[in-house]
């Protein structure tokens, strides 16, 4: 991977300070004057033309990272490069155009009082994408691109179903000709039978427009179908990154393994009963010392409670933040639990 990634973040942190009132500061309750580390040193690169999936459970910080990437939130510290150049904290109109977002909830992401046509027109004119005379033609092109017809132009969002709304939201993101799409759980609010069409649309946009897409998701089965690479997030850190097939066939972090084992299966014979992760994800207020996964990890040792492992290469293109990454396969096979 010598090519410059289209988007690269290094050591990104995001801290939220809570309880800023005087009474909270005086209070002895540690939850009241602590700060929340939503992101705790995230390194990630998005290569040109790929779909990179970012998976993790709620509270892992994946949505926070997505917000920082599109610029609707700013990182507390760290670097964010776009095509090898640092992205300014306050993005210009043109800079913000390059990275667009597709949201999870297609109901709150479209303004109920603005018609589809005038929504697209506003963006096309603001960024002078096409001359005024060609706005309608371009709007129709965008709608066709996402699988909708011209007659959607005069309609309001309330006249569409969830899946169609998501297509409209994608058309809006594409209107300003971005080269990166950040999709934050774009199918999790949709019905199963509709999900597939939206996933196919993302694959098609990647293929036909060469878009680089960061696909934030919690559904691993979806991720496995769509993405070329997967990054797994846990409590504000990336714990494993690899090509999709490699990650699912040869996970090198116990958390990834647990995620895979938790996926409900579709095939009759494939009900998994093997591995159950103990406990709930800990709160980002109170990150465990050492490896942040150690309290739930079946393979944790004393070293794991002390060393906070960084992401390290374990195979070509495969990184994991686990000090026992190399032993993991044998440990799983032996079923040993070192606690």
């Amino acid at each position: 991977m010598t090519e410059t990634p289209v988007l690269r973040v290094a050591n990104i942190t995001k801290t939220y300070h809570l309880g800023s009132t005087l009474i909270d500061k005086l209070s002895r309750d540690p939850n009241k004057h602590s700060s929340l580390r939503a992101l705790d040193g995230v390194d990630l690169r998005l290569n040109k033309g790929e779909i990179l999936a970012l998976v993790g459970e709620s509270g892992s910080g994946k949505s926070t990272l997505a917000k920082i990437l599109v610029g609707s939130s700013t990182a507390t510290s760290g670097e964010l490069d776009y095509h090898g150049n640092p992205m300014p904290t306050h993005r210009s109109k043109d800079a913000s155009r390059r990275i667009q977002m597709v949201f999870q909830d297609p109901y709150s992401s479209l303004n109920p009082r603005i018609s589809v046509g005038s929504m697209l027109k506003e963006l096309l004119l603001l960024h002078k994408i096409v001359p005024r005379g060609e706005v309608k033609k371009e709007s129709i092109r965008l709608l066709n691109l996402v699988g909708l017809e011209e007659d959607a132009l005069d309609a309001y969002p309330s006249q569409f179903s969830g899946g169609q709304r998501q297509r409209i939201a994608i058309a809006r993101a594409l209107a300003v000709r971005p080269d990166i799409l950040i999709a934050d759980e774009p199918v999790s609010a949709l019905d199963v039978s509709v999900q597939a069409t939206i996933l196919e649309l993302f694959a098609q946009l990647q293929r036909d427009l060469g878009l680089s897409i960061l696909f934030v998701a919690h559904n691993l089965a979806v991720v496995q179908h769509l993405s070329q690479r997967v990054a797994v997030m846990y409590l504000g850190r990336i714990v494993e990154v690899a090509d999709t097939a490699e990650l699912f066939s040869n996970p090198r972090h116990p958390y990834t393994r647990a995620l895979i084992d938790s996926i409900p299966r579709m095939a009759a014979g494939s009900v998994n009963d093997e591995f159950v992760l103990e406990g709930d994800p800990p709160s980002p207020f109170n990150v465990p010392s050492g490896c942040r996964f150690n309290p739930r990890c079946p393979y944790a040792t004393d070293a794991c409670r002390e060393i906070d492992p960084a992401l390290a290469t374990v195979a070509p293109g495969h990184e994991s933040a686990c000090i026992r990454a190399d032993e993991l396969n044998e440990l799983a096979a032996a079923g040993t639990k070192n606690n």
Partner: protein
Amino acid sequence: MATPLLSVSSLTIGIRRKGQPDTVIVDSLSFDIQKGERFGIVGESGSGKSLTLRAIADLLPKGVEVLSGSIRYDGAELIGMPAAQRRKLMGPEIAMIFQEPMTALNPVVRVGEQIAEGPRRYLGLSKQAAAELAIEMMAKTGIPDPARRARAYPHELSGGLRQRIMIAMALSCGPKLLLCDEPTTALDVTVQHQVLRVLEELCADSGASLAFVTHDLAVVNQTCTDLAVMYAGHIVESGRVAEVFSDPRHPYTKGLLDSAPDFDQPDRELVSIPGFPPNLAARPSGCPFAPRCQFAVEACTTAMPPTDEVAPGHFAACFESARIFEGAAA
């Protein structure tokens, strides 16, 4: 076959309108749940699956009512039963678990007391005994440190713990039927996995039957023994989970299975179902799935297909089932 624990027949749910035809949401639904059976009801949003469950629990939203049909629990007819008598069933006989436990739990009462409330009222336990039972139930659902957690308020617990509290509360009076409305949809994958396991084990231990409403086929496969697939207020297919998944006999079931990503088959192409579910007010005549069905023929648009037994214990409501799945059945 023994008397089913729950027998729903020709259940029709809808909104009564003055001077106009009633708006029918769930249309003459029939299914049985045997003792100890784990029965999944699968469907997309608007299929009427949640309303069906709520009709059993007598929790239909205002304005929506059972228009006709019968729900028999252990032989006794629930429709038309006096409200007070029916309420007495809820808790010791039938219990319900909701999708969002935060809204189902009382925010100002400690969770231990909330669990203990049912046993005190229905089982006549003393305050002390009920509190002990509550802690025991919490331990059974896998809540670590139950004695301490019993003193917590709902907002102090994570989503997974809250859902376990709901399970503990639902099972505290030893119900014979547990109604679950998307109980794990709001949870993370690893936590969903834990909660489903707990639910399954506890039902197996106590011999309770499960009616499990969800939109997630994989969750049904993981949790249930039998299922019914609902579309636009109708059951289009029902049978043993293993059989329906491996050999679907209704084009909608087939479509659902083809459109859902399967972790074990990453390279399988996802095929979505074109279009979207019909508007409740403007329901097509004939088979409700016909407008989206690639196999639809003339007859499909005129009459509702009858429910046929396509294989022992496996039912489908499709005129063309035999033709469409000819190859699959062989």
